[in-house]
């Protein structure tokens, strides 16, 4: 492939990143998606929108989030210097709120009265319920029954915030099925409803706008690392469910070719088993949820159930821009198993005094393979996408501890 001038110009005007992306939705939704695209384009040109958003990110979300030198993890691995981008310190405990705040402002501009969302770990559901409460909009969150069971604290949080949590009983009752059900709601309630998609997936313009709202992570990181080290990092590391926390960190660095960028997918029980969520390594391109991207699927093009100990990574697809970055080789995609993530989870608790989200623990897990052999002046920035309070039941269960 010919070398590109920039890796940051996508998507093209038809919503594609190479062959990936697009607008694969039912006709009922097409006018809504075009309307959203127009509203988003208009908001980009409006300085008032940016001003309102950055005010809320500062005073409501608590940005900017610190870039924290993880001294003891660094010492532990004995190699590269490790920094944590502390998205866990955001209001509601994860990066998800960056995107929700952006989208709810769009919803308000478009005059929508009702908000819907899908959620896996419940972090996106909580963030959505939070911004809906903040602006007094009705809110319904679709969540698979399996996830409701393993993320109980977040379910109750959403209810406290006034959201209606709707259990999804189809399929494996996880994130994919919640997204199907949210799309069905949207097809039905076309007049007043705004769908806040929680990751860089879905039909165009979602992958683009979610990315843009998450890019605050990478932009802050650039500034902060320049302040701390006087130079850009050597390696970026983030976990990938749909890929929003990763894209938010990665995108502002894509054109800095010296910066190595690594995304970590969830390998569940191992990618040579049938229980994992590594769509890039274990899947092939297909069409689901409005976009073409790498998907876990069988020979007949039927979608397979993903598996990860972490509900937020338990999805058989990945955002289309990641599929493109994978194919052109700009970003390297690796994976970490449930067991590796559990180890890293505990290590981060003990060494840093930070309980990470199980999702983020997948990124931390890759340090074991990466950090020890690197020189001491090699700088790694990891996106600590969320905190792990929500995961203590799952972790206790995995460790055989009764609470």
């Amino acid at each position, binding site marked *: 492939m010919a070398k590109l001038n920039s890796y940051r110009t996508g998507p093209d005007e*038809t919503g594609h990143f190479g062959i990936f992306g*697009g*607008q*694969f*939705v*039912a*006709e*009922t*939704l*097409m*006018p*809504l998606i075009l309307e959203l695209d127009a509203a988003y384009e208009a908001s980009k040109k409006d300085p008032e929108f940016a001003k309102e958003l950055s005010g809320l990110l500062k005073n409501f979300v608590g940005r900017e989030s610190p870039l924290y030198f993880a001294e003891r993890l660094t010492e532990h691995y004995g190699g590269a210097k490790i920094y944590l981008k502390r998205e866990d310190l955001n209001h509601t405990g994860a990066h998800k709120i960056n995107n929700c705040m952006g989208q709810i402002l769009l919803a308000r501009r478009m005059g929508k009265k009702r908000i819907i969302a899908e959620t896996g770990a419940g972090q996106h559901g909580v963030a959505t319920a939070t911004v809906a409460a903040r602006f007094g909009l009705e809110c319904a969150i679709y969540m698979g029954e399996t996830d409701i069971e393993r993320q109980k604290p977040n379910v109750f949080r959403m209810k406290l915030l006034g959201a209606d949590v709707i259990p999804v009983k*189809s*399929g494996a009752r996880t994130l*994919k099925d919640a997204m*199907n059900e949210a*799309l*069905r709601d949207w*097809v*039905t*309630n*076309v007049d007043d409803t705004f769908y806040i998609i929680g990751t860089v997936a879905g039909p165009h313009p979602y992958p683009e706008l979610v990315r843009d709202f998450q890019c605050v992570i990478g932009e802050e990181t650039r500034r902060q690392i320049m302040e701390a080290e006087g130079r850009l990092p050597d390696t970026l590391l983030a976990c990938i469910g749909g890929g929003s926390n990763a894209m938010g960190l990665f995108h502002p660095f894509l054109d800095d070719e010296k910066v190595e960028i690594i995304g970590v997918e969830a390998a569940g029980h191992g990618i040579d088993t049938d229980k994992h969520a590594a769509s890039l390594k274990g899947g092939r391109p*297909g*069409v*689901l*949820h*409005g976009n*073409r991207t790498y*998907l876990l*699927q069988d*020979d*007949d*093009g*039927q*979608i397979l159930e993903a598996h990860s100990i972490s509900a937020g990574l338990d999805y058989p697809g990945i955002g289309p821009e990641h599929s493109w970055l994978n194919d052109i080789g700009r970003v390297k995609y690796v994976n970490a198993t449930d067991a590796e993530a559990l180890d890293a989870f505990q290590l981060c608790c003990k060494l840093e005094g930070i309980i990470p989200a199980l999702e983020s623990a997948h990124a931390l897990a890759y340090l074991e393979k990466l950090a020890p052999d690197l020189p001491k002046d090699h700088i790694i920035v990891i996106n600590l996408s969320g905190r792990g309070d929500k995961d203590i039941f799952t972790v206790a269960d995995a460790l055989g501890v009764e609470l």
Partner: protein
Amino acid sequence: MSDTRIDRRFKALKAEGRAAFVTYVMAGDPNYDAALEIVKGLPGAGADIIEVGLPFTDPMADGPAIQQAGLRALAGGMTLKKTLKLISEFRQDDNDTPIVLMGYYNPIYSYGVDQFLTDATSAGVDGLIVVDLPSEEDKELCLPAREAGLNFIRLATPTTDDKRLPKVLANSSGFLYYVSIAGTTGAAAPKASDVATALTRIRKTTDLPIAVGFGLRTGAQAAEIAKIADGAVVGTALVEQVALGSNDKDSVNRVLELAREISAGIRSVKKT
């Protein structure tokens, strides 16, 4: 494009002075053999056009009845290949009834568009409805399908306004499927008066026959639609009969019995 079975059928019905009864059933539901029997029985029960559902794990525009029908079919080992085989078996004794394959894009994309078009054409498929391929994605399948001589049938919905309609119609042929409500399949029946208003609007833009569906369950409802549209589509109500059957034979009988009732409703409406 030369006339397809679909074009010929609508012309014949127009001459006859009545609307088309368009049925939808899921391939492989409750299993291959019983589904084949249903499809073979439908023309005798009054179906003028048969939409054969291609099962998919994640049908984002379908309600519970059709979702479950798809999952039953998949659990029984149904695939795209077997769906085409079912259609070719049907074609062995029926060379007139149009068959429209209806489903989602991924199984077709996975099969390979060129191979799919070759195999679908030789199986005797006449048209395609692919729910998640709006006109924005015409290059994927719509244009190649037209090239291969298949009708690409498009859905128009209450959200498809006058500005958008020409785009939706641009490469479509056979007929236009007007989805009478914003919602998933199997939702509430539409008000005939709302549908009439929409059809008047749409007819200003196209001469294609218009079939109306979503939510029709009875002969009486279908008759109301038959007065104003060129066809009435019934899916969920038929698919539900499959699930209600106590065994395969009962499922087949129930589907065909309901089809006969609805067909009688549609045939009771004479148009000049």
